[in-house]
């Protein structure tokens, strides 16, 4: 793991809920190495010079360009960061991987093509392929000569993918599996060469297969006409007695779900990085437009209601960067300790990533929803021009929407977040119950003397601490009421997920800002401090709303009143002047003409 100098501490997944972290324990965009910055520059240049000028052609399905760009990206090394050196890859850290996804995201159509190829199209082989399979395919994938795709979903099973209908049966001579069924919505299908296809052997054993496009019995259906990401190919895949050699079974028979779930973890944090990159691009264009559009004899960037939007967009990116890079930073410090020559190095790597499954889902949900907000305001600031195709907001608005659907819908990811946290708590992996008890004891003993805070950001730290306490308290109240059956109460599970998501986002944002203050001082960190105060206000509002919603559902009468009083107490803080703060942020954005934190 060449690049990141990871924070020393190895931080367990989900532990943010029950432990406090110091700023120096987390990775932030300010910690990018010189090498990271150079790689980001190459990705940026490649996107601006090669991808963006060709966007229109790709929107109209000229896939020869997509293939050509995949080849060029591979030659530069942009597509091979996650492939081991032994198979022609660069084998770099996940921070690098995310930085590239972030910078390539300016044109979502190609970003999806590239993301599917390097992510779900390649990683099953990287993590689960045997030596022969890797030797056979990976060097060609690394060189961009063959393009990968991933076929899990079906018309009748998307979220519920393990319940697929596709079947596989061993041929009488024992040399092939014969695959039958139909896969749906397969990214890159029109021009991919190698598909990871999931099917049930004998209708039972859920298994992954490596299927080449020329295997007899495989055909690709018609392109879907999509709302967005029209520059990417999405087609059904038809398997009609498709002959797959037995040596092309990927991983263990009957354990395809391990592949499916693990690949999604990676897909999720990279989707987060890509959403942040897409949002940054949208904000830069929104600022530029607001500066030059005049109404009522002024540039519209003079108006408070427009400035508010610009500031909110920028805060979204700041927090988005904070959660994405904090998450992959934790991963990199675990991955960097793995002995690459070990026989089970890949299994260890997979487990290292899986450790942060909850954080990956948080990043996915939070960043995709942030992006949707950002592009919505992008359209709004462009107003009439935002609604027509000739201007960039319209496409960005449509392109963003898919992110809440694929890589697990945001509903499914919310269920995962709360579900996994509870599972970890029950298995004893996460000391959640003792933490809940501590918080309950604390709040029952009445209001604590709030220490008069002298140190920088003390008030902000208190808010984050209370946000986490609220999450624990409400999770405790909900589990007490429903016990094991809590997972069936989806609205409550969803509200708990929202609290967990916000707590992580608020804390990540604050820790990054604390780190900035520690290195550059409060004056230089004025903008990040403002963005943090804006975000904490917003985050706490969401947490309080979710807390009230759950409390009202799990308690009544006196109990309800007591609990609501506690909620209100924990959610209370002296308000920041967010109008002035947003003005400050917007002013700087307008001066510099683009997103930035200085």
């Amino acid at each position: 793991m060449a690049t990141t100098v990871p924070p020393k501490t190895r931080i367990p997944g989900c532990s943010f809920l029950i432990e406090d972290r110091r700023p120096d324990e987390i990775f932030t965009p300010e910690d990018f190495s010189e090498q990271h910055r150079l790689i980001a520059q190459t990705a940026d240049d490649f996107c601006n010079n090669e991808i963006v000028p060709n966007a229109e052609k790709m929107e109209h399905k000229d896939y020869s360009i997509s293939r050509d760009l995949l080849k060029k990206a591979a030659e530069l090394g942009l597509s091979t960061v996650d492939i081991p050196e032994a198979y022609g890859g660069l084998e770099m850290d996940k921070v690098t991987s995310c930085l590239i996804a972030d910078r390539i995201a300016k044109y979502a159509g190609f970003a999806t093509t590239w993301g599917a190829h390097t992510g779900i199209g390649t990683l099953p082989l990287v993590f689960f392929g045997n030596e022969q399979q890797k030797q056979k395919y990976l060097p060609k994938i690394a060189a961009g000569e063959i393009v990968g795709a991933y076929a899990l979903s079906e018309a009748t099973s998307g979220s519920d993918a393990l319940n697929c209908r596709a079947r596989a049966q061993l041929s009488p001579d024992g040399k092939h599996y014969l695959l039958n069924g139909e896969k749906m919505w397969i990214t890159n299908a029109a021009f991919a060469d190698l598909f990871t296809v999931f099917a049930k052997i004998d209708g039972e054993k859920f298994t992954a297969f490596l299927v080449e496009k020329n295997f007899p019995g495989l055909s690709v259906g018609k392109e879907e006409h999509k709302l967005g990401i029209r520059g990417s190919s999405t087609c059904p895949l038809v398997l009609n007695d498709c002959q797959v050699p037995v040596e092309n079974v990927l991983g263990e028979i009957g354990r395809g779900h391990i592949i499916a779930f693990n690949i999604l973890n990676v897909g999720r944090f990279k989707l987060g990085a890509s959403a942040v990159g897409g949002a940054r691009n949208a904000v830069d264009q929104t600022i530029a437009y607001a500066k030059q559009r005049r109404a009522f004899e002024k540039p519209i960037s003079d108006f408070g209601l427009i400035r508010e939007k610009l500031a909110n967009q920028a805060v979204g990116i700041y927090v988005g960067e904070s959660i994405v890079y904090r998450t992959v930073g934790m991963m990199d410090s675990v991955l960097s300790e793995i002995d690459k020559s070990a026989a089970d190095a890949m299994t260890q790597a997979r487990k290292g990533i899986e450790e942060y499954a909850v954080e990956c889902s948080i990043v996915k949900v939070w960043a995709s929803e942030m992006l949707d907000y950002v592009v919505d305001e992008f359209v709004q600031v462009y107003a009439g021009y935002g609604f027509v195709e000739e201007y960039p907001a319209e496409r960005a608005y449509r392109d963003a929407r898919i992110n809440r659907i694929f890589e697990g819908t945001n509903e499914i990811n919310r269920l995962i977040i709360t579900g996994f946290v509870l599972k970890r708590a029950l298995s004893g992996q996460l000391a959640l119950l003792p933490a809940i008890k501590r918080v309950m004891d604390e709040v029952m003993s009445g209001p604590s003397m709030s220490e008069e805070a002298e140190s920088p950001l003390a008030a902000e730290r208190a808010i984050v601490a209370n946000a986490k306490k609220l999450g624990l308290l409400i999770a405790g109240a909900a589990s007490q009421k429903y016990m094991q059956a809590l997972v069936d109460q989806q609205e409550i599970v969803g509200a708990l997920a929202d609290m967990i998501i916000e707590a992580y986002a608020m804390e990540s944002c604050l820790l990054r800002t604390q780190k900035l203050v520690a290195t550059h001082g409060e004056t230089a960190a004025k903008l990040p401090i403002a963005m943090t105060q804006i975000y904490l206000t917003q985050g706490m509002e969401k947490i309080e709303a979710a807390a009230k919603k759950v409390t009202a559902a799990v308690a009544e009468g006196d109990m309800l009143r007591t609990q609501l009083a506690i909620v209100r107490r924990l959610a209370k803080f002296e308000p920041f002047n967010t109008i002035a703060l947003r003005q400050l942020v917007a002013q700087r954005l307008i001066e510099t003409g683009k997103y930035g934190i200085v």
Partner: protein
Amino acid sequence: MKILVCMKQVPQKDAPLKLNESGTWIREDVSYEVNEPDAYALEEALRQKEKHGGEVVVITSGPARAQQVLREALAKGADRAIHLEDDAFVGLDALNTARAFAAAIKDEQFDLIFTGLQSDDYGFAQTGVILAELLGWPHATIIMQIEKNDTGIRVKRELEAGFFQFVNMPLPAVLTIQSGINKLRYATLIGIKQAKNKPMRKVALADVQSALTPNLQKIERLYVPQKTKKTETLDGPPAEIAKKLVDKLRNELRIL
């Protein structure tokens, strides 16, 4: 051919600039990039090396942050780098910068030295020319093309109004390179990875101090020009407006 390329880190083209407190230069908190013509000079050097073999060495003077420029050059294929590292180098005039470079490379034997035509910040267009003078080498400016021949090189210079000049020169020589003369390559990831292990020689201010003299050129004051344009609208029927206009031009502005 052994080629030295002088590269400078300058504020990014679209970076919003703010004056420093003393009003003599800009504040440091901006984003930086490689001076554009220098990037073309590097590209040209790499192409010459690919054709004729040899070595490409890059040099810069500036604070620690300027190292980024050298790493980028190493990632693109330069063989080694020399960094004159000190905050004080930022304030040197062209003569002193050239002196510092000459001192830093006194033990080297280059066939060619490339600089960019000029820098995007100060815009002196002097450093390369003075460096040639200090070394006692011939030089040519605004170079668009370089061909090696039996006696040295033949270069194409850009003149004005679409005219060009071809010059035969002996080696060693100094050339200042025009922007846009070739297509810049990307730094590949493998190049970036390898750049970390390429040699980077650091030269301290003290090592070259004896070659320097007080700056002959000094920025006394830097300021943003005040907008002075005033617009006045004349109303009324056309004949009246015309009359008012003539009156203003004659009596107020006195240009008629």
